[in-house]
């Protein structure tokens, strides 16, 4: 977010960095109280969802943004994480495992699914890969929808309800937490947990980006054959991208299940995959601050449309003429088209990509080299 840009700009001055980090930290820490008291709990929930979507978008960014593998079924990994949590901590099977077992297990299982999807699709690129991954996402959803007979595993379209809230140590996040005479409401507690994990994922992604693996991903994105000839094991590196991206999705899914208390196949349809992809692409593929911006914007904008379109219509026409839900998605679709037409590299592209889109990359590199 803004801390990133200021970090970039001020990298030279260490004290400024520390000051900016502290200010940003305080801002993030008091944010739920401002939003909670200013806009109410529904917006606090939306804020929590924005954090979940940021995790998802960062995970997908590894696959799409870094490695350049277009994945349209990403939500399947979110579903895997969510359903694993739901099955292991709900009355459905009578299991109530603790969070620190389930979340890592969800990450691992989603990672395995990622490898399962990645392995057969290694040879595919671009549009074809997009369609296969889309098919994979739909297969997962169809199975979730139908695995209630003859053995009831997923409880079918009804989904699984009564999922245990996330509880850490002796605290359950479902109820207000009292600590040292200070009471933390449930939504706020979830916010801090999600924020911590989101920051952790941001940290991991930044470290990955600047690592050998990260550079190998970018090399594959730019030219797979050249990358191979440079000694990169493209098969393993691509599988790693799928696995890592998927495991982030698995973590976010587990948190979603615990937060929501209910999962059903409907939460994991293609539209959700598309939404996460749009966050990555609109924000600026491969650029971590851009992706975070995309995650925030695309979580909040539809909500603004949802809450705003009804009252605005009443104000203009005196009654609700158009279905607010349809209107919201209509505006969303239009926004996608318009942004892509005018900023095909995304709202906040990375510097290298911006150069590419101007089409004078070689000249720039030469000039910088001279």
């Amino acid at each position: 977010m803004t801390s990133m840009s200021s970090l970039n700009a001020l990298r030279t001055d260490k004290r400024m960095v520390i000051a900016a980090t502290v200010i940003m930290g305080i801002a993030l820490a008091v944010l739920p109280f401002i939003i909670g008291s200013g806009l109410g709990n529904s917006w606090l929930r939306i804020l929590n969802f924005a954090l979940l979507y940021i995790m998802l978008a960062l995970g997908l960014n590894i696959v799409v943004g870094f490695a350049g593998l277009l994945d349209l079924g990403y939500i399947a990994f979110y579903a895997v994480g969510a359903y694993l949590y739901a099955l292991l901590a709900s009355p459905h099977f009578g299991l109530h495992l603790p969070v620190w077992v389930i979340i890592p297990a969800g990450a691992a299982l989603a990672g395995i699914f990622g490898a399962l999807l990645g392995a057969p699709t290694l040879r595919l690129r671009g549009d074809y890969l997009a369609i296969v991954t889309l098919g994979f996402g739909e297969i997962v959803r169809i199975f979730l929808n139908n695995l209630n007979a003859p053995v009831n595993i997923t409880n079918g379209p009804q989904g699984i309800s009564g999922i245990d809230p996330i509880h850490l140590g002796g605290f359950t996040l479902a109820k207000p937490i009292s600590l040292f005479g200070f009471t933390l409401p449930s939504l706020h507690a979830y916010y801090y947990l999600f924020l911590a994990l989101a920051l952790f994922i941001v940290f991991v992604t930044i470290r990955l980006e600047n690592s050998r693996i990260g550079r190998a991903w970018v090399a594959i994105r730019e030219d797979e054959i050249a990358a191979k000839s440079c000694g990169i094991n493209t098969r393993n590196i691509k599988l790693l991208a799928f696995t890592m991206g998927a495991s982030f999705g698995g973590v976010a899914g587990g948190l979603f299940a615990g937060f929501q208390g209910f999962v059903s196949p409907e939460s994991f349809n293609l539209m959700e995959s598309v939404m996460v992809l749009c966050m990555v692409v609109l924000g600026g593929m491969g650029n971590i601050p851009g992706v975070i911006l995309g995650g925030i914007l695309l979580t909040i904008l539809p909500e603004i449309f949802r809450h705003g379109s009804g009252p605005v219509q009443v104000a203009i026409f005196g009654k609700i003429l158009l279905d607010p839900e349809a209107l919201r998605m209509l505006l969303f679709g239009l926004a996608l088209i318009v942004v892509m037409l005018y900023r095909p590299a995304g709202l906040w592209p990375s510097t290298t990509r911006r150069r590419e889109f101007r089409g004078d990359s070689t000249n720039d590199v030469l000039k910088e080299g001279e």
Partner: protein
Amino acid sequence: MDIFIQQIINGLVLGSIYALVALGYTMVYGIMGLINFAHGEVVMIGAMVALTVIKLLANSGLPVFIIILLALAAAAVVCMAVGFSIERIAYRPLRHAPKLAPLITAIGVSIVLQNLSMLIWGRNYHAFPPILPTSAHDVFGATITTLQVAIVLIATLMMAGLIVLIHRTRLGRAMRATSENPSIAQLMGVNINQIISITFIIGSALAAVAGLMVSANYSIAHYYMGFMLGLKAFTAAVLGGIGNIAGAVLGGILLGLIESLGAGYIGDLTGGFLGSHYQDIFAFFVLIGVLIFRPSGLVGEKVSERA
């Protein structure tokens, strides 16, 4: 045995609809190398418009044939306009952008069309008025309705017409030239922009026909019907070899057969573990299988790695 024949008949009907829609995908892909994700929604618009006209005229006393023809004409006109605008607004400005950009605008167009249709026609399912003859014929112990015969016949006629258009006319030659190499075609005096627009318009007209057929076949139309249909038709196009007209037809029919036979027998094959509600996953397994083992499709030419 009669169940087997019945499934074959159902598969053929379904398959000819898939084939018509698949032609739209494959033509656009052949010429522009782009997957027109919004094509399924064009089919849906066609179905909705046709249904609206039929509902309006159902009690007018006109002969059924005329009503259907009018509905078809209205649907075709609207779909052609929609297809033309999609290309102009969402694809043409991005022709030289990286591949992800038109994909996102295509998704955007899909969302817009779906929700526009939800605003116009509401969220409910629309039933097809019972104006069509329901007479059924006996074929080897299975039944086939007049409607199903008509669907297969019309689809075959349209596909034959398209193949003649592409291989026997001046326009068709220009289309093939554009698909072979746009810049050389332009040097030879082909107006590429015009050809691309015409391709979209033809594909959308086929989509309108397919839309009417789907809603007549299932007696239902819905704002969300385009998505799955589009996906399956795309699978059909890939199965046959995307970019290849004959391949799309073959792929469509094959996919229809696979789906209806699969749905009919999956219960027996898996000992009742998987039921016919898994019908939708066949298309995806076929798609994944084809792309892994034969990415160029059954009759397609070799595609480059970056396809």
